[in-house]
Structure formats: C-alpha cells, structure tokens
C-alpha cells in the first residue's frame, strides 16, 4: 500500500502535467486530486490496518507464541500502528513537500509566500491542542475499533458456522453505531469542547475500559482458526 501511495503521489502530477500542461488549472486539479487520493488511501490504509490487527488474534502462528495475552495485545497494536503511521507519515511528508513547492513556486511568488508564512501565528496552546487531539483521536480510534472487532469475533462463536460471517458483519455495524452513539452522547454531556481536560479524561477512561475488555475477551473467548 505504501508503494502504491508513493507511486500515486509521484505519478499523479506527471499525468496531470501531460494532460493540462503547466498552468494554474493544472495546479488546482492536482491539489484537489491529491487530496481525494490521500483520503482514499487513508481509508484503505485503515481497513488494512484493522484487518491486519484482527488477523493476529485468529492465527495459530501468533497465538502459540510464549507471550501473555496482554503482551500480544499491546505489541500487536503498537507495532501495526507504528508501521501504519510510518507509511502514512512518509506519504504525508511527500505530499506536504509537494504542496509547499507548488505554493512557493507556482501559486504564489516567493515574497507572497514569505508574507503568508510570517502572518501565520500559532500559540503553544494551539500546537498542544492539535497534538493532544491527534493522539487522543488516533488512540481512541484504534483501541475502540479493535475492541469492537474482538467483540464481534466473540459473538460469532455463539452462532452456527455458516452464519458466522453474516452475523459478524451485521453485529459489527450495529455495535459500531451503538458504541459511537452512546460515546458521543456521554461525551457531549461531559463537555462541549473538543479539546478539554474533561473530554480527554473521558476518552482515556473509555480507552482503558476497551483495553481491559479486549484482553479479557481474547484471553477467555477468542480462538485462533484451525
């Protein structure tokens, strides 16, 4: 996926160049195209990430390793997420570098670019808010979706083998809807701000509960496939 993303990031502008030539409409189309592709890749990347995380619980190869369930859980989530962030991070870096070059060299004059940059002011609090929001969102997303997938695997054990896939898909959608609905309602009751100490603390509590429940289910219910 990383290679595909890299290839698209590099070859997209070349394709557009051939089609539109170097003019303003080329750069606008290019920027929109890059954004759309970036979001598509991000979506595919997330699906692959969760499929890959889930595969570990179902594989004898990993379940037989002499590690506790907690060790397996944390190492799986950390390593898979780190790998994902590395690929996405590299692609984002390339895209940002390309965007920077476009802005600096083609859509703005160097002087306009310098002025725009110098006018932009970021306080330390703004930077911290962005960092905390990003970490909070990433950790919550990965831990909570992983929990829902583990819960889905557990529920599948209670139905006949021929219905397991259907029950898995349906229960995941229903659980995702219920979980998001309840989480959002409680979160709104606690605080209206996206980044506040209370909302971050609430998210932390939900994450800890999801980790505990995931490890419990893995240890006692989720089996590897034969």
């Amino acid at each position: 996926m990383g290679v595909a993303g890299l290839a698209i990031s590099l070859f997209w502008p070349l394709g557009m160049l051939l089609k539109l030539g170097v003019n303003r409409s080329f750069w606008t189309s290019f920027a929109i195209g890059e954004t759309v592709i970036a979001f598509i890749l991000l979506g595919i990347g997330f699906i692959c990430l969760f499929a890959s995380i889930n595969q570990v619980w179902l594989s004898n190869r990993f379940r037989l390793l002499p590690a506790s369930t907690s060790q397996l859980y944390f190492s799986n989530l950390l390593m898979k997420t780190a790998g994902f962030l590395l690929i996405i991070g590299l692609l984002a870096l390339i895209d940002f570098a390309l965007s920077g070059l476009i802005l600096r060299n083609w859509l703005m004059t160097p002087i306009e670019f310098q002025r725009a940059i110098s006018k932009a002011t970021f306080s330390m609090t703004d930077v911290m808010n962005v960092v905390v929001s990003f970490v909070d969102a990433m950790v919550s997303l990965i831990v909570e979706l992983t929990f829902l997938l583990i819960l889905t695997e557990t529920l599948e054990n209670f139905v006949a083998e021929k219905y397991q896939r259907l029950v898995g898909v349906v229960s995941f959608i229903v659980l995702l809807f219920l979980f998001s609905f309840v989480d959002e309602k409680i979160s709104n009751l606690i605080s209206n701000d996206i980044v506040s100490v209370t909302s971050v603390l609430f998210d932390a509590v939900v994450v800890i509960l999801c980790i505990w429940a995931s490890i419990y289910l893995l240890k006692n219910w989720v089996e590897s496939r034969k």
Partner: protein
Amino acid sequence: MSAQGLELQHVGYKKMTKVILNDISVKIPLGRLVVLLGENGVGKTTLMRVISDLNKGYQGKVCLNGVSDERRKSLISFSDNLSSFRSKISLNDVIAFYQQGYPDFDLQRVNELLNFMRIDPLQRLGSLSKGNREKFVIALTLARRTRLYLLDEPLSGVDIFSRDKIISSLVKWIDNDSLLLISTHHLSELEQVIDDVLILKDQTMLEYRNVEDIRQQEGLSVEEYYRQTYLEH
C-alpha cells in the same frame, strides 16, 4: 513430583450446544511417548488445541508441570499447519520467525532435522509438497527444547519410507524430561516406539494405558487392543 507432567482434570469443551470433549481426566508423566487414538471427529485435534490454550472457554483444568494458566504455552510445542504464513515465504524466513518468537528454539537442531528429512530451507513454503510440508512442520515442532510436544496427525501425507525413518528417530529428538503426544491413524508403524496409548471415544477418554502392560497382560498388539477396546465399548 506429582506436578511434573501433563494433568487434565475433568476437561470438557463445547461449541454452542455440541459437546466435543467431555470430562477427560488423565495424568501423564514426563519422559513418555504417547499416541492419541480415536476415529475422525472424536476430538483429538480439539484436545490438543485445548492443551495448547488455542481453544478457549473449556471446562476443567489443564496443568503442565504445575502451570495451569496461559503461561503453560511456553512449555508446549504444537505442530501448527503454517497456514498463516504466505506461500511465497522461504523456509529460512519461517525458521527465523520461530527463532525470534521462541527462546527455546534450537537452530542447530532444526538444521539437523531438515538435513535428516532432506528438506532444503531455501525453498518457498508454497512450493513444498504435502508430505514435505508435514516434514517441515515436524522439524519446526521438534526443534524447540521444551516439555510437551503435540504432533497432530503429522505423518498423513508422508511417504512410507520417510515415515519409517521419522518414526524410528522420534525418540532421538525428544529429551528424556519431555513428553510427546502424537495423534495418528498409522498406529502399527508407531507401535515399536510408543510408551502409552490414550484412546478417545464418544468425546471422552476410553482408556489411558501402558503399551508394555497391554502386550504382557492382554497378549495383544496395541492395534489389536485398540480395535478390541473400541468395539467393546
């Protein structure tokens, strides 16, 4: 002393409402080579998976050398079918995974075993025939220096000459303070090397008996005894 070995206490396992294993209790000391017998679907693989902690939600207790929780996995080498490895992966890469994952994995031993079974580790996993794949699984399983080896029908696709060769050398690859539990339908070929038999029927344990006792007290070969016991009950 009593804690050394494998102990199953009233082990049962259900899948939904279907009983797969029912009330199995047995104590097997270390240093034994035990064959697990029973017809298809009786629960041999499930029993091995329960012992390895791969199957969850079982009743009763599984205890290996006094360890009954998930830590017992570190004392068990189970013959995984390697289905979760990509077919393009080389055998050397699979070996590297085992070497990194299992502290008790003996690289020298796996090389000796592969050499003995005439398997080239440079091959890709997907290029192995059924028999050679089974030989590779046996080599990986026995290359760990651990207490309990579980081989689940390891020889079903192996040719008769290789099978004889592997069976006759099984004792050599297992340490004296270890236990080997092997499920097979090729009983007659294993008869000369095994110490005990564990027979499963109707989801429960029918018999756990010493091979020497069967020969001396019953005057029967293990295969004859198995047939007789199975049909009587």
